[in-house]
């Protein structure tokens, strides 16, 4: 039998890796994939609590999270294509035209 806190620990570690990836990488693809890592950490938490609390609400919310992640990925990748076409770069620290 697996204790619940193992899942919560795994989810926390995965979320932290995602946070560090968002904050420290330059490539915008890796930043988006780190956001997906954080969403997956939340999904693990939701499914684990849904299993241990005997309620299906967590699994329903995971379906919604996956839906929102799909829409977010589509729009974000369209924006990245626009950025790369207009600015010729995918590195976030080169997008500084609003800097005073």
């Amino acid at each position, binding site marked *: 039998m697996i204790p619940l806190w193992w899942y919560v620990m795994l989810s926390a570690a995965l979320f932290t890796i995602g946070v560090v*990836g968002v904050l420290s990488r330059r*490539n915008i693809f890796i930043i988006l994939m780190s956001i997906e890592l954080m969403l997956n950490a939340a999904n693990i938490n939701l499914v684990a609590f849904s299993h241990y609390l005997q309620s299906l609400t967590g699994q329903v919310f995971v379906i919604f999270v996956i*839906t929102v992640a799909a829409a977010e990925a589509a729009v974000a990748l369209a924006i990245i294509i626009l950025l790369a076409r207009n600015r010729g770069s995918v590195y976030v620290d080169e997008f500084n035209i609003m800097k005073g």
Partner: protein
Amino acid sequence: MINQLIFLYFAAVILVSAVLTVTRRNPVHSVMFMLLLFFHIAGVFVLLNAEFLAAVQLIVYAGAILILYLFVVMLLNVDRESSAPRANRFWPWMIGFGLLIAGEVMLLIARGTFPAEEGKTMQHAGGVRELGISLYQNYLVPFEAASIILLVGLVGAVMLAKKQSKE
């Protein structure tokens, strides 16, 4: 016992491939490690009796979203990939910050008590039937809102990525 060993294997592969995802220089390699990560997260879902969600994870995340990422990464084909630095200049601070967050969260988890023991887990609730009934009765309005979100994502992606016409 065997479940714990399987969980430890899944957790180890998930953490290692997550670290490799955020540290590789080539985005295509990152996508491949992300694929490995999604497969093992689906395995964790199977351990938690959520078989339908494991299938959804594989089909939607690994089959649709990740392929979309891979297409765009290969479409843009940014060279200079071998010479540019992969992290911004704040990365040691950010890693320290991440370790701080992780330590704090794990301390909180270790101090908390989770009321879960052997007999309290559900047996057959991971099936499609219960999930469908819950989704279409209790959560019908959020379900329709999710479909609106998908429609907005579809239209928005097409509108953003098409060639701008010169008027």
